[in-house]
């Protein structure tokens, strides 16, 4: 597996040398996008064999990577549909007279312990644990039942036989094993499985709850930032995550651009943080939109657990957990938008919540942008690239050409001017295979899979 790793730190492994190729695209081709088909979350499982997507219609679709074919060892297997199920249905809260959207906000896989796969999926209010299991054998040869299920008249039974399992066509079943409901007044924005594999957290705008996977009728509230008087509310929780190795540590980000790290050993209620990460505002860039653009839309620990990454409207910041005063690295995602903030405020794009992700060895980070562009930043070599997910570049194995946006003045050939960007085409959700250079990029209703060019 390591041979696929583009940026494993080997000699000459630079992001320039990693060429990304189109592999597959999933979803409808036509431009008329049904609301329910809008992809709202994308997540690889821990082995990378399974790729789950959630959509606005409450459905989860899981793709499975075909094993590498022996004939073509250099080709990675395609991802094909493995299971599709309706995770959440629209609900009506009778007390408040409002409808609860079925849109899947997040999916998180549990580490695999047996043949079955488990994942958590959540909408605004309810989290569900799903078991996805395969059935490829069925018992045949019952004494009292026919194979089609009809009961035999016992009087006609003259001999006895032992039922045996016979192979059948593979059937993948998804069944809800737990439903964790009624714990959130506000909209759930994150779920995160603990490294202890027994607990997980869920966060909404004002509170974070800790659950035990086995227990559905209660959860512990570990963070509560709701003020006594709601009129004094000026900051909300935007994302949260457990540390990948330390089961007592988690972080949550806020709409003011701050990240708080909490240690559950300190007290039952973690309102007092153990660490507080915030970068002082740059006085040169201060404007009425400063706070909005500093609002963090996603927070992610590195696989190593030493760093965490935050995404705000214009940039990605990498933080060393040992240094609270400022990030160790900052990458500008689309700086050319800084002069357009007023328009983006007017059309609400400034409130778009982009996610970000690490590659398997934490050397490259990726996030989405507008015009179906997505960006990768190589931390080691300090290089970045802009690529596009579009049907035009979807010839199998075709190499993606880097894109460039010109912010004004002279526009070079092949560059796109800021004013021609399509702000309806936004890539909010991306995911990176945990062990390989395979990425999943979600446009509005299509899922693109790209991989690095082998050989």
């Amino acid at each position, binding site marked *: 597996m390591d041979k696929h790793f583009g940026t494993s730190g080997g000699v000459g492994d630079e992001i320039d040398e990693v060429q990304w190729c189109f592999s597959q695209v999933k979803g409808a081709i036509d431009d008329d996008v049904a609301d329910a088909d809008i992809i709202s979350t994308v997540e690889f499982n821990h082995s990378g064999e399974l790729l789950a997507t959630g959509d606005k219609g409450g459905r989860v679709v899981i793709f499975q990577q075909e094993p590498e074919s022996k004939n073509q060892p250099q080709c990675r297997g395609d991802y094909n549909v493995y299971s599709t199920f309706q995770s959440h249905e629209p609900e009506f809260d009778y007390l*408040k007279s409002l409808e609860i959207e079925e849109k899947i906000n997040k999916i998180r896989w549990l580490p695999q312990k047996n043949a079955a796969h488990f994942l958590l999926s959540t909408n605004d209010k309810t989290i569900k644990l799903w078991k996805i299991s395969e059935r490829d054998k069925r018992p045949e040869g019952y004494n009292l039942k026919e194979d089609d299920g009809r009961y035999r008249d016992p009087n006609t039974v003259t001999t006895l036989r032992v039922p045996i399992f016979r192979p059948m066509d593979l059937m993948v079943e998804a069944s809800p094993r737990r439903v964790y409901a009624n714990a959130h007044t506000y909209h759930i924005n994150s779920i995160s499985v603990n490294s202890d594999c027994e607990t997980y957290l869920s966060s909404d705008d004002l509170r974070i709850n800790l659950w035990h996977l086995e227990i559905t009728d209660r959860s512990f509230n570990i963070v509560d930032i709701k003020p006594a008087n709601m009129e004094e509310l000026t900051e909300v929780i935007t994302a949260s995550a457990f540390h990948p190795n330390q089961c007592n540590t988690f972080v949550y980000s806020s709409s003011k651009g701050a990240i708080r790290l909490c240690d559950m050993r300190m007290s039952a209620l973690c309102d007092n943080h153990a660490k507080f990460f915030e970068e002082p505002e740059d006085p040169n860039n201060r404007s009425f939109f400063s*706070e909005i653009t500093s609002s963090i839309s996603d927070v992610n620990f590195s696989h190593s657990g030493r760093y965490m990454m935050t995404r705000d409207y214009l940039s990605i910041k990498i933080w060393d957990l040992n240094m609270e005063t400022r990030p160790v690295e900052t990458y500008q995602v689309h700086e050319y938008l800084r002069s357009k903030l007023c*328009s983006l405020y007017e059309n*609400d794009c400034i409130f778009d919540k982009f996610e970000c992700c690490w590659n398997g060895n934490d050397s490259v980070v990726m996030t989405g942008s507008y015009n179906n562009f997505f960006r990768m930043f190589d931390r080691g070599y300090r290089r970045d690239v802009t690529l596009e997910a579009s049907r035009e570049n979807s010839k199998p194995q075709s190499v993606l050409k880097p894109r460039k946006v010109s912010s004004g003045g002279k526009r070079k050939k092949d560059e796109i001017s800021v004013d021609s960007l399509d702000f309806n085409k936004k890539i909010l959700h991306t995911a990176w295979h945990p062990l390989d250079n395979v990425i999943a990029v979600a446009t509005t209703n299509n899922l693109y899979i790209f991989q690095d060019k082998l050989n």
Partner: protein
Amino acid sequence: MFPKGTKRKFLDSAEDAATATVAGEQGPASTRTPSPSYSLQRQSLLDMSLIKLQLCHMLVEPNLCRSVLIANTVRQIQEEMTQDGTWQIMTQALAAAQCPTDRLVATEVLCRQSDPAAAAAAGQSPKPYPLVGGLDRGYHSEEVVMEAGDAHKEALPTQSYLAGPFGMGPCWEEEQQQQEEEEEEDGGDEDGEESEGEDVDERPEVDSRPGEQVFGTFEIKQQPPPPPPPDPALEELFSDVDPSYYELDTVLTGMQSAPKMGPYDLLESLSSHGPQPLSPGASCRSDLNELDHIMEIIVGS
């Protein structure tokens, strides 16, 4: 939506002004006077933000993060304007522009205190709500109204408030009875209207000041520009609206009997261009300037 390839010249220059170094322009707060273009852009940003807040509140379950961010932006603008002294000017102009005949006001409280003479006699000086000083109270949940184009100054005492995103919206709260009762009474105007009135009633410091007026609509206009020439589309829209709607009593009666407007009904009635009769709630917005302004923002986005 941001149409592909469309240049937004005015706004881009507005952005330049709005994103100009606020820090850089700050001299001593009392002596700093912002340039007219900067003031204009800031005002338009304030307008836009208030509209967004209003739209937020029309949703049955608003997005809390978004509301907080917009409210903080409004607060920031208001703080800066208070430092400039322009907030004072704006609220005075607001008071001065009060004119009962064109103004459709929707709150019960306003109806009660609509006598300008009595209000003037109270001798209250216009005063912005101390958002800067009163941070312990956070937002007040009243709304601000300004009338454009009316030059005559009456020494009406006013209390100006900034739309509070949370005080009026027990959507955030588990207890919602109050809000729901208010919504039922509210025949079609903004959801916040009645709750504004309710909130005023509940706050002892407001009631203790006689002669205060609470404004119904919250459209903040720019420094009184001359009213734009009547838009033929809008005139057609209003052509069959009974002018008696402009009478306060008719409005209130109409509101009570009008069917409850859902979150998007107001938007739909505003954006429709056919000559259909508007619901009484929407017709409260008889001020063409305000309607024009809202439609511009909605259609433009």
